[in-house]
């Protein structure tokens, strides 16, 4: 076979392989940008897609980035050329930063049905689920500390956490430590850093490492044990209740100003707070629904997973204002 034949052949293979990635120019399409794990086979993506497509008679297409923070960068990179109608998967801490891009527009969604513990007032960003950060451990192997202070000060455990610059749980822990330690957060991080096996880019890597036994505890959610109970019948994983309270995460979605298909986008945001969508969330995204969604699965019962009494939170404006200082403080402390 001559060189040119070989080359033509490989080119043909390439074009064939790329064809599916290129063929999606359609009018009746709703494009939703979200993070990777939302769209995976076991995540909410496939069920949400099926349910919404049946309702709208349209084609819902997911575009997934690695993580929530990456979503925002991608939108800024694409600017007004973006084909996204909806961005789904930012959290309340990122709202101010997202608003600064001026890429989003107010929604017309009816928020009265929402039943969040601390209420909700933002009209651009619509919540779709919430939860509390917590350290998850294997109760057959580890005795967990009972407070964040005890984790920092004296507990003899190894932990895996996520980078606050790249992951929303990572940012959550940064703010959790900030709300407990205030100005002493830097010193707290210095102490904590001795217990950190590794800091990963995203939640899923960290959780995978924990399950492989690379560390005693992992930063995740109070609802994570429910996954193991429901999906695997495994009861040894628990989240450690901390006496200071747990930092809250509310995941949100919003419509883009330049959405190619604004009507479908409105329809989707309404669908998002409906029973249908909300009932998919608990057993796929393993978070709590933001609106009444019928009966919760058994593993979500009050005696099965921990529901924190104190819900910690720092306002989105404060986060946006101080974010880079706090991240620098963290960087300084953990790279000693």
């Amino acid at each position: 076979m001559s060189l040119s034949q070989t080359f033509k052949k490989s080119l043909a293979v390439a074009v064939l392989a790329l064809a599916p990635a290129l063929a999606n120019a359609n009018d009746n399409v709703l494009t939703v940008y979200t993070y990777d794990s939302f769209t995976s086979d076991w995540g909410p993506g496939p069920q949400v897609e099926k349910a919404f497509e049946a309702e709208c008679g349209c084609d819902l297409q997911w575009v997934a980035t690695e993580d929530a923070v990456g979503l925002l960068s991608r939108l800024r990179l694409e600017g007004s050329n973006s084909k996204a109608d909806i961005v789904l998967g930012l959290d309340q801490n990122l709202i101010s930063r997202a608003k600064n891009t001026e890429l989003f527009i107010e929604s017309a969604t009816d928020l009265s049905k929402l039943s969040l513990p601390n209420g909700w007032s933002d009209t651009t960003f619509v919540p779709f689920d919430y939860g509390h950060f917590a350290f998850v451990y294997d109760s057959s192997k580890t005795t967990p500390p009972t407070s964040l202070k005890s984790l920092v000060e004296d507990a003899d455990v190894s932990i895996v956490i996520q980078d606050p610059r790249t992951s929303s749980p990572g940012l959550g822990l940064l703010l959790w430590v900030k709300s407990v330690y205030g100005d002493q957060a830097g010193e707290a991080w210095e102490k904590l850093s001795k217990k950190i096996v590794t800091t990963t880019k995203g939640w899923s890597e960290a959780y995978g490492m924990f399950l492989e036994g690379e560390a005693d505890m992992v930063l995740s959610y109070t609802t994570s044990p429910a996954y193991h109970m429901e999906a695997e019948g495994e009861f040894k994983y628990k989240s450690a209740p901390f006496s200071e309270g747990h930092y809250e995460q509310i995941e949100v979605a919003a419509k883009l100003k330049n959405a190619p298909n604004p009507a479908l986008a409105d329809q989707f945001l309404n669908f998002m707070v409906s029973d249908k969508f909300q009932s998919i969330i608990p057993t796929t995204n393993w978070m709590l629904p933001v609106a009444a969604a019928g009966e919760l699965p058994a593993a979500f019962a009050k005696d099965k997973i921990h529901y924190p009494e104190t819900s910690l939170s720092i306002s989105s404006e404060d986060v946006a204002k101080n974010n880079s200082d706090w991240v620098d403080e963290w960087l300084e402390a953990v790279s000693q």
Partner: protein
Amino acid sequence: MRIFYNNSKFGSDTILLLISIGILITILGTAFFHLALQAESYNFFDVLQSRYIKRVLVFTLWQAALSTGLSLLFAIPLARFFYYHNFPGKRIILTYFGLCLVMPVIVAILGIIQVHGNSGYIVWMMRSLGIETKGYLYGLFGILLAHVFFNTPLAVRSLLSRLNDIPQEQWRSAIQLNFTPWQRFRLVELPALRSALPGLAALIFMLCFTSFAIILSLGGGPKATTLEVAIYQALHFDFDMARAVTLSGLQLAICAILSFILVRFGKQSETEISYQTGQESILKFLQNKSWMARLFGWVSLALILLLVFPPLFSVIAKALYHFEWNYLSKPALLNAGLISLGISLSAGSLSILLAVSLCLGLRHIQNRSIRSFVETIGALILVFSPFALATGLFIVLSNYASLDQIGPFLVILINALMSLPFALRILIPAFQQRFQETQPLCISMGIQGWTRFRMIDFSLLRKPIGLAMAYATTLSIGDFGIIALFGSQDFSTLPLYIYRAIGSYRLHEASFAALILILTCYLLFIILERLIGGPKGQTQ
């Protein structure tokens, strides 16, 4: 100033050279120009003054220097050992070393974690022996382990090929003069190694300096951050173009200066990846008699085998042990496999097209400055941050099409560029050597242009071209940098698939996909090398 060799002149080869250099400079220039335009304000000084960046810079240099030093420290005695001794399994080990070079990073990382991680075999053994340990992998140690894993095999093969090139006459003289082992090393081997060491050290240093996936997975957090990781963070998360441009410039400048210094030390490096098999004949008489050298050789061999074999075995064993038929029925896996093949074959072809065009023109050039200018551009592509390149190009192209449409082409283009330095390392010396032999004939018979390439060059050079194509393609199939930036649900390659499977704690499936990736990679290598290179031994 003479540009061409005596018997060469401006012709179609030169036009090809100019076009391909033009393409390269346009791509690299456009990317950085548009990235720079995006920056809101420039505070180069501020960026460089930041304590964090200083620390990142120091760490980047430190880990790269250590990795280079350690890789060479292992490689020199090993190369000598392989040169002097024949033992069962030598060929297999050397072949495996060749494959280490193209082993997808994500597979190696998976294997290294399975062996060395906090729940890996070694920690398990230590604990069963009663040694309490919290594990040792994450941090500088893990980074060095992975860098030595990738670079020692490369260095051994490259140094061995230099030793094999030592002319028989020198050995005859050495025997006649009754050299001691130390004299043999200093007077015969060292000059041969010295011509290779600076170029080799520069290559390994650059590879470690720009390391990305290894640092992210095994570095253990912000303490271990390289400039490349900082560029990725600036672009992907902070959207800080000014910072990304500054850091990319810094990375480029440091690597350019260092490689310039290193290459000045020795003569121009020739080829790091040998396509010739050395002659052995009379050397059997020279088997190294010193038991010290022998012991040292065996110990290095044992150590390196313990380092490079178990991770791959572990990945394969886990994949086979936990195999489930339903892994095969997943369309996502098949899809990722096909896209991987398409991307890597296109990137490999594009890379070879560029490399061959450059080499065809370059062989006529006698002027040293022009030659080293072209060679430097070729080599320095290695230290252009692929993320900065991709983002810059995306900004230009986003006015014409969406990310989904451009993504695949950018992935192909950047991968082709990133494998170009490797292709050039194989092709430049090969083209040069054949040129000296065939030029008089071609001049006297008036053969030129396409006819010359088809009838003369390709038939003589198909072996190195095949090898270069095999390397360029398999390096692209293992890429896990650019694809992380442009991948989506429908556009995923095998490395990205593995990464996602690890991420969603489907580790058995990840091992299985890793097995598929290794098999694809190695089969592709062999097929391409044979298909283009012709049957074994045809041209050598």
